[in-house]
């Protein structure tokens, strides 16, 4: 067993996938010689060569557009978008091409593309470096969207994503890149499209993914000291949603709080809230509450701690749910 960071988990997962399948290639800005601005692809170009770890020209539409062609030719491109806010030049290729080619060709064309996006705030960055654009992709038919929250999942989920013949948008919580955990490779991973109960509880269910899983677990620990028992579920997969564990938990606790950094309106919380009220209506003791970013652009970093959902805001929502 070794303790690895989340960034290292992705790095090791990429390496394992590349060793297993020569068709796996990495492409992105600064991913080669530099090893990526977060060093997630560190050492891979050195070991797999410039044909498989490609420092691309500075053009995101180009990265995704050429990935489509490479995929048609049988490759499995893993594209890195340097920061969340820089995915938009590639948005057209992702939404109109990557997401639709399987459908249009009635399955004759596969798109085994992984789009890695470091996302979320909390690192004191300038604008466009702290966004949470996952809902745009989860809203798009033809894409699958996942988010890892810890080093062990990072290691396995990136490999499972690369194995998938469908295109996957893979969100990495950048402020958790340096969080550590023990990796035991002999323990088989859960399936990619499954959510997971991270902490069991009876009073309130908290649903989170990516960076907010840690925040929610901390909130659960704080609440336990006050006698409130919180169940925390890491969604892991945002599209498709793995709803059964969520419904089971909602029926058990009768109270659900969804937490994400992305703006609240039409975020993942909206869909979860709708589905839970459709499926668990008679079990609910309170409306599903959302703790999320406000409907504003991401603010200057000096006030990001206020903007971002934190332990206090999660517990505030838990209290409001309990008071219903």
């Amino acid at each position, binding site marked *: 067993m070794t303790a690895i960071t989340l960034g290292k988990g992705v790095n090791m997962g990429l390496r394992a996938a590349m060793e297993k399948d020569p068709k796996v290639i990495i492409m992105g800005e600064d991913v080669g010689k*530099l090893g990526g601005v977060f060093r997630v692809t560190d050492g891979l170009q050195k070991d797999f060569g410039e044909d498989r770890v490609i420092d691309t020209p500075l053009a995101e539409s180009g990265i995704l557009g050429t990935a489509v062609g490479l995929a048609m030719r049988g490759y499995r491109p893993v594209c890195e978008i340097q920061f969340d806010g820089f995915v938009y*030049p590639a948005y057209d290729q992702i939404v109109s091409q990557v997401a639709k080619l399987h459908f249009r060709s009635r399955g004759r064309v596969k798109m085994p593309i992984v789009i890695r996006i470091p996302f979320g705030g909390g690192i004191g960055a300038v*604008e466009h470096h702290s966004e949470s654009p996952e809902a745009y992709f989860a809203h798009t038919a033809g894409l699958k969207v996942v988010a890892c929250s810890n080093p062990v999942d990072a290691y396995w989920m990136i490999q499972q994503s690369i194995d998938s013949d469908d295109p996957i948008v893979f969100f990495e919580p950048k402020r958790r890149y340096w969080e550590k955990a023990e990796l035991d490779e002999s323990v088989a991973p859960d399936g990619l499209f499954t959510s997971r109960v991270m902490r069991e509880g009876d009073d309130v269910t908290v649903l989170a993914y990516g960076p907010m899983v840690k925040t929610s677990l901390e909130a659960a620990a704080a609440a336990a000291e006050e006698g409130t028992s919180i169940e925390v579920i890491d969604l892991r997969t945002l599209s498709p949603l793995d709803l059964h564990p969520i419904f089971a938990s909602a029926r058990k606790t009768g109270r659900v709080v969804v937490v994400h950094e992305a703006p609240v309106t039409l975020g993942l919380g909206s869909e979860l809230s709708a589905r839970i009220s459709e499926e668990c209506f008679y079990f609910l003791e309170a409306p599903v509450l959302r703790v999320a970013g406000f409907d*504003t652009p991401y603010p*200057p970093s000096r006030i990001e701690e206020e*903007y971002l959902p934190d332990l206090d805001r999660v517990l505030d929502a838990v209290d409001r749910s309990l008071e219903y």
Partner: protein
Amino acid sequence: MVLSQRHKWETIGAVHATLVDGAARLPPSAVPAIPCIRRPKGARVTDAAFGPDLGEVFGPSHEGGGPDLIQLLTPEGERIEHSEFSFDLGDEQILGFYRDLVMTRRIDTEATALQRQGELGIWASLLGQEAAQIGSGRALRDQDFAFPTYREHGVAWCRGVDPLHLLGLFRGVDQGGWDPIADKFNLYTIVIGAQALHATGYAMGMQRDGVVGTGDPDRDAAVIAYFGDGATSQGDVNESFIWASVFNAPVVFFCQNNQWAISEPIERQSRIPLYQRALGFGFPGLRVDGNDVLAVYAVTTAALQRAREGSGPTFVEAYTYRMGAHTTSDDPTKYRVSEDLEHWKLKDPIERVKAYLSRNGVADDDHFAAVEAEAEEMAVHLRKGCLELPDPSPLDIFDQVYEEITPELQVQQAQFAAYLSSFEGAHASEQGARP
């Protein structure tokens, strides 16, 4: 290890004979071995059919900027003649440039120091690019408009933006403290290349407002769009070239080729010198010594004048070097050799002006000391101002989203205000402290 520029070009030039006919001549490392292919019958072409040998266009002759590099002041501080461009203003003007260059570098060093001390989150240094920015910035007239990237601190200085206002974005208290409309200097644009289109659109607006080609020097206006070598790969930048060309927009595309886009060398963005791309879009491209403030001024003045007169866009490639890290978060030792840096140090944009001024008795040590002292004073003001920059109020962000706030957002704002006040002024940024 990264090869030095010189070695790279030698390699590129040397291999042009080894490839199949018609293909671009590329360095061997960049080209997978292509087996000899037989020409299909009935499709015989001459070797010349696919145009010039790019190995020669982008070959060893481009060392140091190549034969088309426009230079008026050598790194040693000698004024030299150029067949097309000249610097016609007097030494007074050069003294002014000198001051601009020193002040700009001082802003940069102070900001870098502030970042090191944790007062700024990040800083994008312009070290080495001062002449490109002062030469082009001083070529602007009051009625012109500039669209910067995130590195144009020297241009901001020329536009009269308070250097303190540049720090807000990097400190994280705002997203640009100046008024882009009043200062005719847009906010910094971090999304690579986006501003090239904005500049073109702004220029199209000037055309429609009748402030182009009237012959009135106080009225005719133009736009300058700044971007880097890396940005030239973006779709937005290429689309802006097409727009500007098709509509003959009064815009100067000013590309600071500092040889690097974070860790990627210019060869990763282009196989030919950037200025040569312009012709393909339908307007002229020039390459100027970006470390020569006189040449940059002369070339940009002429290009802006062309634009103001209604003759359309120009591409100016300022050939320079990013002497520092990409930003304070970057470690360039991971991807480039110090040999290049040493080579470019000899071409320092400030030293050559200083050499010119002292050699010709225009300025003496007292003068230089006085400029330094002024820069020090400004740095003190900058530091003090930076530490005093007020943090924004979390509630203000709701008011900034729209011209007219929505009812929904007002509700969010009110709820958030109530939430914050529930902590009675003791809102814990240290997590865990609940009221």
